């Protein structure tokens, strides 16, 4: 009897510990959001979105150049990365079992785990070193490199969910293989769109690959061949800089960045759940 009680107490104690672990693990998200709101919301003004930073010593100013830069760099990355990722994903799932498909999948998994700074260095050797100057294009290239494996894996998973009957029906109608693949792609498209959105959300926050590709800049720029500012770079520079005005801008820029990323994330999750009702 005594032993039994002891066992039950032990079981309950372990559950208690686990609940404590949940609390500790969840806490940082709220702490981070709270400090972002507390320190960043104050300078979240109209000015912030339309102006360049004020000279050091003056308050106010904004990071419009960085917002624009992020849009351009991430946009460029998406144009390169998403089609490539979808193509590779389609191949890996529709031609399952071929050796090339297996290799593609393995390489994508390895790339998925590659530190983003290494990818940045690679973009540097390929684009910056050959052109001999930093450019927004090199930044886009680095981010695209990160996006391909992510988009590829989601595409592959979703295409696998498409019932085989659909493929067989298309083939039975005398469609060639590529049109069959097109039918499959259209069926899986909504899921692929959300997967791509998630990839966009992830690379928007990447800093390390941009450090020595897009480099950052203090001015408005539309030229892909020139260095360009980006939100994460601004946060890094201003957070590690010595001036309180910079710190304030870094907090606000982080707040904007995180709002964008979390919105994309939650939105994508919500849409996926509604459409597929997957029990994750």
């Amino acid at each position: 009897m005594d032993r039994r009680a002891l066992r039950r107490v032990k079981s309950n104690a372990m559950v208690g510990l686990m609940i404590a672990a949940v609390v500790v693990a969840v806490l940082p998200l709220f702490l981070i959001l709270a400090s972002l709101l507390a320190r960043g919301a104050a300078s979240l003004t109209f000015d912030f979105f339309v102006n360049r930073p004020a000279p050091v010593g003056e308050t106010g100013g904004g990071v419009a150049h960085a917002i624009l830069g992020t849009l351009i760099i991430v946009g460029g990355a998406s144009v390169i990365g998403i089609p490539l990722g979808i193509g590779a994903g389609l191949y890996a799932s529709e031609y399952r079992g071929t050796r090339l498909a297996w290799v593609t999948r393995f390489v994508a998994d390895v790339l998925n785990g590659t530190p983003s700074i290494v990818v940045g260095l690679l973009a540097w050797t390929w684009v910056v070193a050959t052109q001999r100057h930093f450019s927004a294009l090199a930044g886009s290239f680095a981010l695209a490199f990160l996006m391909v494996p992510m988009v590829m894996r989601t595409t592959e998973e979703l295409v696998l969910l498409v019932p085989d009957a659909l493929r067989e029906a298309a083939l039975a109608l005398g469609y060639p293989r590529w049109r069959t693949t097109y039918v499959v792609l259209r069926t899986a498209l909504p899921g692929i769109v959300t997967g791509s959105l998630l990839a966009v959300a992830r690379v928007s926050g990447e800093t390390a690959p941009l450090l020595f590709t897009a480099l950052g800049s203090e001015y408005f720029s539309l030229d892909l061949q020139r260095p360009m500012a980006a939100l994460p770079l601004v946060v890094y520079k201003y957070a590690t800089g010595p001036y309180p005005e910079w710190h304030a801008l870094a907090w606000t820029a982080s707040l904007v960045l995180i709002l964008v990323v979390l919105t994309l994330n939650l939105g994508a999750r919500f849409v996926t759940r509604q459409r597929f009702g997957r029990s994750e």
Partner: protein
Amino acid sequence: MLLELTRGALPAADRFGLGFITSSVWDPVAGHFGAWPAVVGTLLTSLLALAMAVPLALGVAIYLTEFAPGPIRRPVATVIELLAAIPSVVYGLWGIFVLVPFLTKWVYPFLEARLGFLPFFSGPIYGPSVLSAAVILTIMIVPFIMSVSREVLLAVPPGQREAALALGATRWEAVSTVIVPYAKSGIMGAVILGLGRALGETMAVTMLIGNRHDVSASLFAPGYSMAAVIANEFADAAGGPIHESALIYMALLLFAVTVLVNAAARLMIWRVSRARGEA
């Protein structure tokens, strides 16, 4: 990719050979480069973070799959997974202005007072230090380990659990004697995946580790990590081509390590899912 990195690293590899890893002199002006402090910093922060993150992440994963009441499972998992979506610069910013002041004010003095007899917890307290970087890494890798091991645990057949309970085991005994051993290899995979993340994490570590080419016994002292060295020095590699090449060499090392770590993790996770009889 491997080729390109190798080519860039060749000049430095030629000149320093394998001694690159063990030498601790880093002097761009004189053209001496040794990666030892960065290698140690990387390993130390990652392993410390792993030691803190694993119990936490497993606790959460087990609780969510075995004990939590139905309605809270998904929201809690979602919230923790959102932590994985926060950009690492934001972690770095938060680390500099919120976490480090908190740690240096409350936690470190306490550790020093209680455990000061150990060399790790003695010496002057710096804000940005190896330990601070490890703490922020912990927060960052918990979501990864948690979500992968949760999937593995969900894959344990319910029959196993029911059999244990039917034999009169308490719920914790069912978990510790049946379910966790069953999922062991997959959980190892999740942990190693987390290690891979921690090794390659750049921004948050760069902002918190203190960036000093030095190996110190105390965890309160600043250090350096491989990714941070690259991030800080590459854009203006002052030591000329050999400096640049040394940094690429370091990236090659980092890349090789993460590839190995990730491949190991994948194989372990695959083994579990193959044993389950599906992909």
